[in-house]
């Protein structure tokens, strides 16, 4: 049973809010709620979009009454469990840091008063968790950046961030699946394909996945991805 606050978003969607902060505990409630809504929704919902602390549910207002959509969501929340995701997949992503691979790496280390090697090791040490995918197709919002490494986003976004860039902004961390404008600090880059629309499962990462960054020892290595199924 999950406590939820349901707010209409216009006449065709609902925000189902489970918390008011960005952390592991709140986002794991989001994962569990999103799954429960998917099970309960049947054909009523046209899209279910989880984020840090809420799930957006879309419906066709000519087919589904708002009251019915709300009742389905409330029922789903009652059946959702607090905990979830004990068997998370582990995904190792190999990253080349600094230089043209991560144009903000050196200045970021300097701003934090750390040697580059120590900054890189501190960044690679924690297990990150995919909170949700958003912004661009396949872009993971990762939780787990150590607060000591937090840096503000750029005052002026760059018109072009290269595909595969690993960026940070405050306590957020993410990977750009394709070239796009972006204001996050770029530490390094992977050549792993994060989104491929031609695959049956187009996104490399899914909410709940554990992500580990590993420094690349060679350029060829940056295309390497290791996935360990958590169920194993």
């Amino acid at each position, binding site marked *: 049973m999950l406590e939820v606050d349901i707010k209409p978003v216009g006449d065709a969607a609902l925000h189902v809010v489970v918390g008011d902060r960005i952390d592991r505990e709140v986002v794991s409630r989001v994962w569990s709620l999103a799954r429960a809504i998917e099970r309960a929704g049947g054909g009523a919902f*046209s899209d279910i979009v989880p*984020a840090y602390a809420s799930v957006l549910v879309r419906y066709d207002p*000519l087919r589904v009454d708002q009251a019915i959509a709300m009742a389905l969501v409330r029922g789903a929340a009652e059946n959702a469990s607090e905990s979830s995701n004990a068997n998370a997949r582990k995904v190792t992503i190999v990253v080349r840091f600094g230089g043209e691979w991560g144009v903000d790496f050196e200045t970021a280390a300097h701003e934090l008063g750390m040697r580059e090697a120590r900054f890189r090791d501190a960044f690679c040490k924690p297990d990150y968790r995919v909170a949700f995918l958003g*912004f661009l197709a396949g872009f993971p919002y990762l939780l787990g950046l150590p607060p000591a490494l937090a840096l503000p986003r750029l005052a002026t976004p760059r018109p072009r961030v290269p595909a595969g860039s690993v960026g940070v902004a405050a306590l957020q961390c993410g990977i750009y699946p394709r070239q796009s404008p972006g204001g996050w600090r770029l530490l390094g880059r992977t050549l792993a394909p994060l989104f491929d629309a031609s695959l049956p499962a187009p996104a490399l990462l899914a909410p709940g996945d554990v992500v580990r960054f590993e420094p690349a020892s060679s350029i060829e290595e940056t295309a390497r991805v290791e996935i360990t199924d958590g169920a194993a």
Partner: protein
Amino acid sequence: MNGPRRLLVRDAGLLSSVQDLGRLGLGALGVSPSGAADWFSARAANRLVGNADGCALIETTMNGATFEAADPMTIAVTGADAPLWIGGKRKHSWRSLSVEAGDRIAIGPPASGLRSYLAVAGGIDISEVLGSAATDVGGGFGGRRLAAGDSLFVRAASSEAFSESEYEPGAILALRPPVRLRALTGPDASRIGSTVIDELFATAFRGSARSSRQGLRLEGSAVTGGASDSISAGVCAGCVQLPGDGSPIVLLAEHQTTGGYPIALCVITADIPLAAQVRPGDEVRFERADRTGARDALNAAASRLRAVRAVASAVTYDPDAARLGRGFAEGASS
């Protein structure tokens, strides 16, 4: 017939792309729905030529575009109030038209409105990406913007004996500015405060040249105050974001799946087509709606969409026949 029929792009104008009703259902992957920005005009164009609502068609922008039929086909143009020429002759939009091989289909600069829709009986034959033919122009997949010299295949029409049909003037979009967008208060309205919300409803905005398929940006009269950014959450078309600079953004079809700006208002589904047709410089005002009003407006739009009628004395044409009376909710993949 010898091989598939073809439609050639002669001048793609500012931005022309293949669209359908979007790739809904992939928001959890960060995939934008994309699809036709003006759902009403896109569905109407398809209905005029006897297609299902979700058939692939062409969306053009702003200054018009020119195509050429390499083979005979039935077409219809809807959307912006733009002049239309077929083989050099002025023709009506919001009406099905027969086109001969070699005829140029020229959509001129609109007198009002921004986007036109060109549907072909049978639909544009283009491979689907993630279950949809929609081009995600900003996201870079599902195709690309059309360019002069492109050649598009057209699927065989389901019925050769399709009778000429049209929408009566009262059924089509009234696009002349000032544009009134009816809106409900958004999920962050209480955090933003009623003073700012009232100001939003009282302000005459102007469409910005920085608008895109992702969102209609409004400027000219920034709203004072507002609220700090929210924790990023899912968004949908119609959401009116209020960034710190006080210039609202009305999200359109190609919106990102999540956003952090507070959502002050939500344009009702029935008026999203009007938001998609706002041109840079057009005056835009938000008008307070309630839940019942939103529902009535959508039902009214759905009946206007069904009111496609036969031209002249076409026999036994029943707008509610299965083919045209298909569920309004029908998605991209029928």
